[in-house]
């Protein structure tokens, strides 16, 4: 950007500057709201999203159907929820590669609690008759599994000081393995009758209300979480500290930000969001599979980065994660409808990540 054009106040000669009231300078903002809006990556992703949708409506009549809208929004909700959880972690300059495996683990833990019979590996010490649980116990167990994984990640990263990439890569392998062991490497589907409530949470629509439109529960939950995260990042001290850690961790530490605690909280939140996505996914499909969420970490991270977050930390928004996930899924859906082999999708998703980082790099260079 051309600095001199934007800062008329500073262009004044030295002598004259003494007569400019300081208050008048203080009230000026560096960039107008409009300029910041235009300079925002999530704005351009939104434009691309709308353009693709309009294009698809024009060429493909099946795209604009209510059913297709319902399916796309539900499918991207799972990734969107994970992307929202990933956002604070990426803003702090970290990354969480384990979310896909956390999904598999949380699905198995929640599914085990819902089972009509005692899981095989437990039968020896937990009597058959006592294995009678409620749907909410399954929800809590699944979330707790996620929280434990996030806590381990967070402590190893913040307190032990290991690189996030290494810790969460290790957790990617470990959490998946625990899921496979707990499930006895079988799909869990023989659920108690109470599991119907569980299934409605993930598979139902409109939160059970009778409304003139049809939106899946996971999508509605994601909308609520997007608004929630946006408010927290903007209005809460915690959000301010997340950005500060990403901007200059050393400075954050010196000014008294509880850096380590905040980081642990970010990783716990990230894993919790993956566990929530798993619980909704199990409810929707009616079964728990230990392979759930494999490679989803890539989609979640891609969503956040496409939405304008900086992998070096310091930047990112809740809306960016939302619209980034939406763009990925609309492109996937469009490619499917256009008859492109689904095996090709990875190439497009991969290309979009690189493109997004490239755009960020170009914008960063202009700023300097």
């Amino acid at each position, binding site marked *: 950007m051309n600095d001199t054009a934007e800062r008329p106040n500073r262009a004044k000669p030295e002598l004259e500057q003494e007569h400019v009231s*300081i208050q008048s300078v203080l009230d000026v903002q560096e960039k107008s709201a409009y300029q910041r809006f235009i300079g925002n990556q999530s704005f351009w992703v939104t434009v691309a999203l709308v353009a693709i949708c309009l294009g698809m409506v024009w060429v493909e009549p099946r795209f604009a159907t209510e059913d297709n809208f319902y399916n796309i929004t539900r499918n991207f909700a799972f990734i969107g929820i994970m992307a929202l959880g990933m956002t604070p972690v990426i803003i702090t300059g970290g990354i969480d590669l384990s979310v896909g495996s956390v999904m598999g683990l949380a699905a198995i833990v929640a599914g085990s609690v819902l089972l009509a019979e005692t899981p095989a590996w437990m039968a020896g010490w937990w009597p058959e008759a006592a294995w009678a649980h409620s749907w909410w116990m399954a929800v809590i167990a699944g979330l707790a599994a996620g929280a434990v994984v996030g806590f381990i990640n967070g402590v190893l990263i913040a307190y032990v000081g290991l690189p996030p990439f290494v810790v969460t890569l290790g957790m990617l392998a470990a959490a998946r393995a625990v899921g496979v062991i707990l499930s006895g490497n079988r799909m869990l589907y023989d659920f108690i009758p109470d599991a119907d409530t569980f299934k409605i949470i993930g598979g139902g629509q409109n939160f059970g209300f009778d409304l003139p439109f049809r939106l899946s529960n996971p999508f509605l939950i994601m909308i609520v979480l997007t608004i929630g995260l946006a408010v927290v990042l903007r209005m809460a*001290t915690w959000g301010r500290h997340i950005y500060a850690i990403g901007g200059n961790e050393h400075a*954050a530490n010196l000014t*008294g930000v509880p850096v380590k605690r905040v980081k642990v909280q970010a990783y716990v939140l990230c894993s919790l969001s993956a566990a929530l996505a798993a619980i909704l996914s199990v409810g929707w499909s009616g079964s728990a599979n230990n392979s759930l969420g494999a490679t989803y970490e890539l989609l979640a991270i891609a969503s956040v980065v496409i939405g304008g977050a900086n992998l070096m930390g310091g930047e990112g928004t809740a809306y960016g994660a939302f619209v980034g996930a939406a763009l990925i899924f609309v492109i996937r859906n469009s490619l499917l409808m256009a008859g492109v082999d689904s095996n090709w999708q990875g190439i497009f998703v991969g290309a979009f990540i690189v493109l997004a980082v490239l755009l960020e790099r170009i914008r960063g260079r202009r700023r300097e």
Partner: protein
Amino acid sequence: MLLELRKVSKSFGAIKAVSDVDLQVGRGELVGLMGDNGAGKSTMIKLIAGNFPPSSGEIVIDDEVVHFHKPVEARGKGIEVVYQDLALCNNLTAAANLFLGRELKSSIGPIRWLNHAAMNRRAGELFGELKSETRPRDLVRQMSGGQRQAVAIARTRLTDAKIVLMDEPTAAISVRQVAEVLDLIRRLKDSGITVVLISHRMPDVFAVCERVVVMRRGRKVADKPITDSSPEEVTGLITGAIHSA
């Protein structure tokens, strides 16, 4: 005595950065701390600011022996620091940096949220007092060296600090801004705040300080009123041409 160092030493492995330093600073004093690179000035500041505890010796503030392990603890005792690298977050606004770690909040019952308007307003007032054209809503990334300095210095004015430690506050700014920063340092002193100024710039120290302390290789080699010294003597002390004074 407001601040007292008794036989303070600090080693990093085999390197003794500060050895057996005694220092006394009274209320409202303006002390210049000088020395070459690696003489132990920054380590001294970090000891007082609570970045790490001394290897031996004790630090006394208001006749109370203190043991700081974190900067926050020192801040709780009224010690504020302006760091050499300024410790600012480039991705946040001036106001956000100013209030980092002690944000102003509004609340209804248990729900508390950031009061952006109040922070921007207060930041504007503080920058106004410092006569700095720093705008509270600007990102620090887009600021000049002098403006960054103003943000870092304004931080020390948020609370009723007793001691302000300044690590090379005039190192990275223009000549006109140096005069502003020196004015500010005088204003801090006039309002009864004790200032310890670390600087390489001889003219700055001789312009504002009342007393000069010189460090060489981790030891204190001089501690005398500025009127009894001269830039030539201090230069000699720093380089080792004069052993002590």
